[in-house]
């Protein structure tokens, strides 16, 4: 009887132990389903670990920084006027103007099917407030006499245009090429290193000519004036009578 009781207890004990030993194997599939959900439930902590990667993906921050580079909030127009042909011995002017573009609109504007869309104004630091801006220009041209030959500078003020003039004169016939340079010199008002930016470098070609390749401008004017006078006197219909009359008066 006692043996039976011992066997029954052992059997019960084994029955109780069996689920305990098989539990990991038996319950694993049952727990796998929630295990899949758990990562989703446990993901909120994950972003707390990831924020270092977010700034590199959210690139608008550097974009905003790039668009906020200080500049001159003006639309300008650069006009270069020069004579493509000059007379040898004559002088002419080359003019370079950096002026306000009246048609220029800093606010980006678009029109689609009659609906006008106006872009947002971007706050751009104004360079006029932080820097003294000097416009510098130079005309490099070999073979022609250029005055002034050195760099000319003029302050660039808000809303005002800047004009540079050069006087050119040629002595000989030929084709001359040169470059008109325009720089902007930024001088910080609070002191610091100056910076220079090349705004434009335009190549120009000027041809110097003579009358039939022989007579330059100033002799042509003199010869033309004297010749016209002589021709008019010689071609005058009563010039013979005038000369005869004068000759008689002189003789008497």
């Amino acid at each position, binding site marked *: 009887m006692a043996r039976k009781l011992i066997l029954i207890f052992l059997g019960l004990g084994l029955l109780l132990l069996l689920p305990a030993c098989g539990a990991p194997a038996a319950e694993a599939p049952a727990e796998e389903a929630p295990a899949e959900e758990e990562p989703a439930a446990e993901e909120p902590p994950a972003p707390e670990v990831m924020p270092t990667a977010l700034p590199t993906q959210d690139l608008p921050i550097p974009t905003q920084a790039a668009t906020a580079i200080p500049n001159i909030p003006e639309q300008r127009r650069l006009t270069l006027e020069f004579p493509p042909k000059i007379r040898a011995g004559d002088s002419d002017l080359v003019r370079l103007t950096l002026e306000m*573009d009246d048609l220029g609109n800093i606010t980006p504007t678009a029109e689609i099917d009659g609906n006008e869309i106006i872009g947002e104004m971007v706050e751009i630091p104004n360079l006029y407030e932080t820097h003294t801006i000097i416009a510098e220009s130079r005309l490099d041209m070999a073979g022609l006499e250029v005055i002034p030959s050195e760099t000319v500078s003029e302050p660039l003020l808000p809303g005002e245009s800047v004009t540079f003039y050069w006087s050119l004169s040629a002595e000989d016939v030929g084709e001359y090429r040169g470059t008109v340079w325009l720089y902007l010199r930024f001088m910080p008002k609070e002191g610091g290193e100056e910076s220079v930016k090349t705004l434009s470098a335009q190549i120009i070609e000027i041809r110097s000519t003579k009358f039939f390749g022989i007579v330059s401008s100033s002799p042509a004017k003199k010869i033309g004036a*004297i010749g016209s006078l002589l021709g008019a006197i010689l071609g005058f219909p009563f010039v013979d009578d005038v000369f005869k009359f004068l000759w008689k008066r002189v003789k008497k």
Partner: protein
Amino acid sequence: MKKIRIALAILLLLISLSLLIWAFLPTLVESRVLPIPPADLQLPTPSAFIYYGEV
């Protein structure tokens, strides 16, 4: 004699007038207009450090 004089006068006048016209003719002026946007009127910055678009 008179014909020669008149021919000479006409020739002289033609040459002289053409010289005067050539010498006083106004020269042509070529004009070039270049629009400069505000983006060009900014401090010189090494372009390698400027980010302009999306990656």
